[in-house]
């Protein structure tokens, strides 16, 4: 690891800490910032100070704000690092975490659960299973279509599976229009799941993020294409499978606790690439940090801009992400021609 890269990582880390501090200090409840800081200090081992916050205020801080900021960071980091991983495997800067059917799969299973038994604790489990199932379906279909090589088949299979599952989801929604609002509210995203959801996905998040970060050098080799990388002795198919597995696990973990938050997975790796260069050894870790910071900030906007009402977080990310996406499209087209 060279000095510029270490510097970039340190900057990313500082940005994340700053965004998280803002997310914890600011909110609809109007807690005294000094009290919040003292209350946080009080939670450190061997430190005991009086924060001056009321019991209810401490409850707001530790049961609502802190877990919310942590969940936003976790989801944002996972979506961004998964997006970077997909982009590396497909050698396409426009690949995103939902490309292989994770989004549509989760959308369908969650709709089915909401329609059948309502908005219950089964929703995150259904979302996780649906996301994994969608990717599995696309992978099986894509591998069966060709000799198992070539990523184009896989992308096409992902598009086909996504459309198919989305069609079923739409059909189910049509049958149960009264549940439409609940389904949409899930799709647009929410990071208010609290400690239980955070604990539920943390193991999967950790495993998938570590696995993705470990593949930085291998994705760099893959950037000359699968055939040339194979000529260099890289087990290209194995690298592709490992990265897709880890990225899909990361996506499923994020989707399980937050819904289908758009654009984080595509916007963040792009910004990182423009600022820190092409190498996945820096793009992956910086996407993790940057994605986390971005979603914490987006959530802060979502819950304060119309306080005490809240905007769905997916609306905020798309509002920033969509114009950016168009700009990126225009720029890539200019490079290609």
């Amino acid at each position, binding site marked *: 690891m060279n000095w510029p890269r270490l510097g970039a990582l340190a900057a990313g880390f500082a940005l994340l800490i700053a965004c998280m501090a803002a997310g914890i200090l600011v909110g609809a409840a109007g807690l005294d910032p000094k009290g919040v800081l003292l209350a946080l200090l009080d939670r450190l081992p061997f430190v005991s100070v009086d924060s001056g916050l009321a019991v209810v205020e401490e409850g707001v801080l530790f049961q609502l704000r802190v877990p919310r900021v942590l969940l936003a960071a976790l989801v944002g980091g996972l979506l961004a690092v998964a997006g970077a991983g997909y982009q590396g495997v497909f050698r396409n800067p426009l690949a995103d975490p939902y490309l292989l059917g994770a989004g549509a799969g989760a959308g369908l299973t969650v709709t089915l659960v909401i329609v059948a038994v309502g908005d219950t604790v089964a929703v995150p489990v259904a979302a996780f299973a649906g996301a994994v199932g969608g990717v599995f379906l696309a992978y099986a279909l894509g591998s069966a279509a060709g000799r198992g090589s070539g990523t184009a088949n896989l992308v096409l299979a992902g598009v086909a599976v996504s459309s198919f599952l989305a069609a079923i989801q739409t059909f189910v929604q049509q049958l149960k229009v009264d549940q439409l609002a609940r389904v949409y509210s899930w799709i647009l995203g929410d990071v208010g799941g609290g400690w239980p959801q955070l604990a539920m996905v943390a193991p999967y998040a950790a495993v998938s993020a570590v696995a993705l970060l470990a593949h930085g050098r291998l994705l*760099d080799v893959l*950037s000359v294409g699968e*055939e040339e990388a*194979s000529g*260099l002795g890289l087990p290209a198919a194995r690298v592709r499978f490992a990265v897709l597995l880890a990225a899909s696990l990361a996506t499923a973990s994020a989707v399980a606790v937050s819904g289908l938050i758009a654009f984080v997975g595509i916007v963040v790796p792009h910004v990182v690439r423009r600022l820190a260069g092409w190498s996945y050894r820096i793009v992956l870790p910086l996407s993790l940090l940057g994605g986390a910071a971005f979603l914490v900030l987006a959530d802060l906007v979502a819950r304060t801009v119309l306080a005490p009402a809240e905007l769905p977080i997916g609306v905020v990310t798309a509002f920033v992400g969509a114009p950016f996406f168009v700009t990126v499209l225009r720029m890539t087209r200019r490079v290609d021609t």
Partner: protein
Amino acid sequence: MTPELTARGLGVRLDGRTVLAEVGLTVPGGSWLGIVGPNGAGKSTLLKAMLGLLPHTGEVLVGGRSVRRLRPRERARLIAYAPQAPSLPTDMTVGEYALLGRTPYIAYLGRESRTDREVTGSVLARLDLDGFADRPLGHLSGGERQRVVLARALAQQAPILILDEPTTALDLGHQQQALDLLDRLRLTDGLTVLTTLHDLSLAGQYADSLLLLADGRAVAAGTPGQVLTEELITRHFGARVRVSGGPGRPVVHLTRASP
């Protein structure tokens, strides 16, 4: 001692079509075999099959060991390959690109060692590219690009070099420079070289022996003088030519149709 490279009964079918059939060849250790043939004869396919990058029938041997039984990393330490149109990510620097040649020496989740950087550095210096190490690939001229691709292949420290059309898109001077460089390197390092070459005269000048492919079959093999005859070229390329320069290093001239 540089190993011999052999192929026996090599066949490739792509999408139900036979692209290569029953091709056999031998490149003795330290020599240069040039593959010539008209467009679509299967030259690039032959090279990819020899590397095991395409499903094929038949057998490829390096020093008597079957390539099929080698693990990818082992194979890449024996054979270095540069495709006809290598993918050169525009933002990657020359140094980073050449370092990719060390891939077969790095464990799956490992990273480049000091030795890997030293080997790459000395290869760049040898090809007069050391001043270019920090330059992005997108900022190179055609001749520089060719040398960078060769640098990556040499960083593999493999005794066998397989190069697909190493002079594509180069002007006359740069074609000569690239092949002179290759010739010098293979003589000093004792490398075994297998290349496709679309320019018959260049193939005749540099290669020790030639193999003429047509419609996926080996139709002639031998010294340049035996392969580059007016009769064979006219029959397989459909071209009117005159061959001069004697039987040792023949030169092929295209002749104009009489008006």
